[in-house]
């Protein structure tokens, strides 16, 4: 999983300082690992092995355990996300209204599999569960923009907005 990361890790000293502060704040508290990982992912955008190592050393938790936790929860990702994070809701309400076809269309259009990021770092594609906007099903989001009541014909136009 880690080996086929195409984008090299390039964390900055600022990020590292922020992470150290987070670790210092939580160290010693029971159940600290998951809150720390949440904050680490906020800082770096994802949790590559390099970040996991820093957390491991900081919290004095074995790396194997951290890797186990990171890969268990789908919120944590070891791959970077794109500049534009496309997420299609595959919750039941959206699925019944055809979001499966929507995601197929997006995959075909930008040549991505779910969970991946384009090599230029521009787009990543995720399938999510109900985002609570079932009234607008089927729903997709691009970063913070929500698009609802989608039909297949809308997809190209939406993606075009971000292609420029």
């Amino acid at each position, binding site marked *: 999983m880690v080996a086929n990361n195409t984008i090299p890790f390039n964390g900055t000293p600022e990020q590292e300082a922020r992470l150290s502060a987070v670790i210092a704040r939580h160290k010693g508290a029971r*159940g600290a690992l998951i809150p720390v990982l949440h904050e680490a992912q906020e800082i770096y955008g994802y949790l590559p092995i390099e970040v996991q190592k820093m957390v491991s050393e900081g919290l004095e938790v074995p790396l194997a355990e951290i890797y186990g936790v990171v890969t268990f929860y789908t919120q944590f990702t070891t791959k970077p996300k794109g500049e534009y994070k496309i997420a299609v809701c595959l919750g*039941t*309400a959206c*699925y019944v209204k055809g979001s499966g076809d929507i995601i197929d269309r997006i995959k075909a259009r930008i040549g991505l599999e779910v969970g991946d990021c384009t090599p230029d770092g521009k787009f990543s594609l995720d399938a999510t569960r109900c985002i609570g906007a079932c009234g*607008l099903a089927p729903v997709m989001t691009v970063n913070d923009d929500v698009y609802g009541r989608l039909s297949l014909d809308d997809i190209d136009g939406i993606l075009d907005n971000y292609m420029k």
Partner: protein
Amino acid sequence: MEGKVVTMNLVRSHVLICGGTGCTSSGSETLIAEFDAQLKKAGIEDEVSVVKTGCFGLCALGPIVIVYPEGAFYCRIKPADVEELVREHLLKGRIVNRLLYEEATGEREVKPLSEVQFYKKQLRIALRNCGVIDPERIDEYIAFDGYKALGKALTEMSPEQVIETIKKSGLRGRGGAGFPTALKWEFAAKQPKGVKYVCCNADEGDPGAFMDRSVLEGDPHAVIEAMAIAAYAIGSEQGYIYIRAEYPIAVKRLRIAIEQAKEYGLLGNDIFGTGFNFDLDLRLGAGAFVCGEETALMTSIEGHRGEPRPRPPFPAVKGLWAVPTILNNVETYANVPRIILNGAEWFADIGTEKSKGTKVFALGGKINNTGLVEVPMGTTLREIVEEIGGGIPNGKKFKAAQTGGPSGGCIPMELIDTPIDYDSLLSIGAMMGSGGLIVMDEDSCMVDIAKFFLEFTVDESCGKCAPCRIGTKRMYELLEKITSGKGEVSDIENLRTLAGSIKATALCGLGQTAPNPVLSTLRYFEDEYMAHVAEKRCPAGVCKDLLQYTIDKDKCKGCSICAKNCPVGAISGEVKKPYVIDPAVCIKCGVCEGKCPFKAIARK
């Protein structure tokens, strides 16, 4: 107008704008900004107060704006409409009819919400404050009797009396299984004194449901108050709310609410001067369905992979960090303050013999009024679908409703008059679940739906026990085989056998209930499975491998739109003559069907 009596700080109108996730997605934040700007421009910003509330329930028609005192219910409001609303309604007192909610009958008029078809059969207890108060202001919650129940419990009742009241009310868990809430509290209360925890399950894993999130977004203090009451009942001083990280608005409102409660001395030490201490923290989930299961949830709070533990010991005896712990669902808690205030009898009078009170459902799928509804237990599915839900769009026929998400089952047309309560649903092979209610019409394939849920469980199985890890995968493969046209009749029997073994041997509720979507669709729609297997046909026209797109020669006018839009060049022909689709090239994406102006393309 009452313009003359208005003083600078007396507000004459309230504009309630839904700030729930559904309406926020439809743009209610910009709407609020636009109202502020327009009110200022009209110079009436001190006379009209704009309140951002929780969910009104009718998400399909969002963003929703209600203007009081008239109670005008405006739907699908766009920023461009705001100027008119301010000028006409708020300045001149003239209702803007064209923006009012329109009943199925076509009438638009101002009437009390309780008279609107969507709300008529509803009874809002858990959702009582959603869409009524500003969830980010504790004073509004207090103005609606907030924290009065906690005060009553702490100063007038013993812990035993609290538990007795809950017991008499008949409240059962709303998280899915329907376990009597008071029993759990009683077990935990009877454990020796010492550290105990009170937890709230806000993981809401059912992939098509958002009841708990709406309660937390619209009325976070109700859950905080109830957890404090529960803590008093069992002798705990610390609580945790385990909430999905995917719910940023709910997380934010909870954080604000906890801060405010601490400021007001309603959390912390010596609450109401009674010597009772209670503190509350949030723990964010990280996207694992199994963490909604109680023991897995506790393992996750402890900072590990959220794998379930065998029970017994039950959490009430040995839970979080191995001490007695109670865990209840958000909606379960949301009922508690009202029960304490209004009394057990009041609550026990609502609902059916064994299922008391109300249940909130997230109504979705092929239904006109998608959104959030709260109905007394015992309401029939027909009432929910036809009266509250406003029926099925596009004149299609109801086929089935799915409840209980990946653990649940479906209710077919012939059982649409089943009263919805815990026991009736179980007896027909479905379950109450946490409240996802997805309506399906004739265009939904039941085999495909079963496969959808199995794919979900395969994905979410934590892998700890073999029946769930391997068994659900095998079931999924069989469904794949059937929906891709390679199924055999024996596969149906194999599905049943596998389902039986998984149910009997899986470690936790996830595996034990995973076969339900398959078993219940097999029970009511076996003919549909047979059509896939024996005739290699998908009656609903969903399973792509069993479909063929064809052009009706008589309807095709040879306009060439389909050929131009086909992404793989599978359509050919001469302009003004009927076109044809090459099945070997066609990827069955359905684009041509949508584009054809003459409806000449059929899917079979």
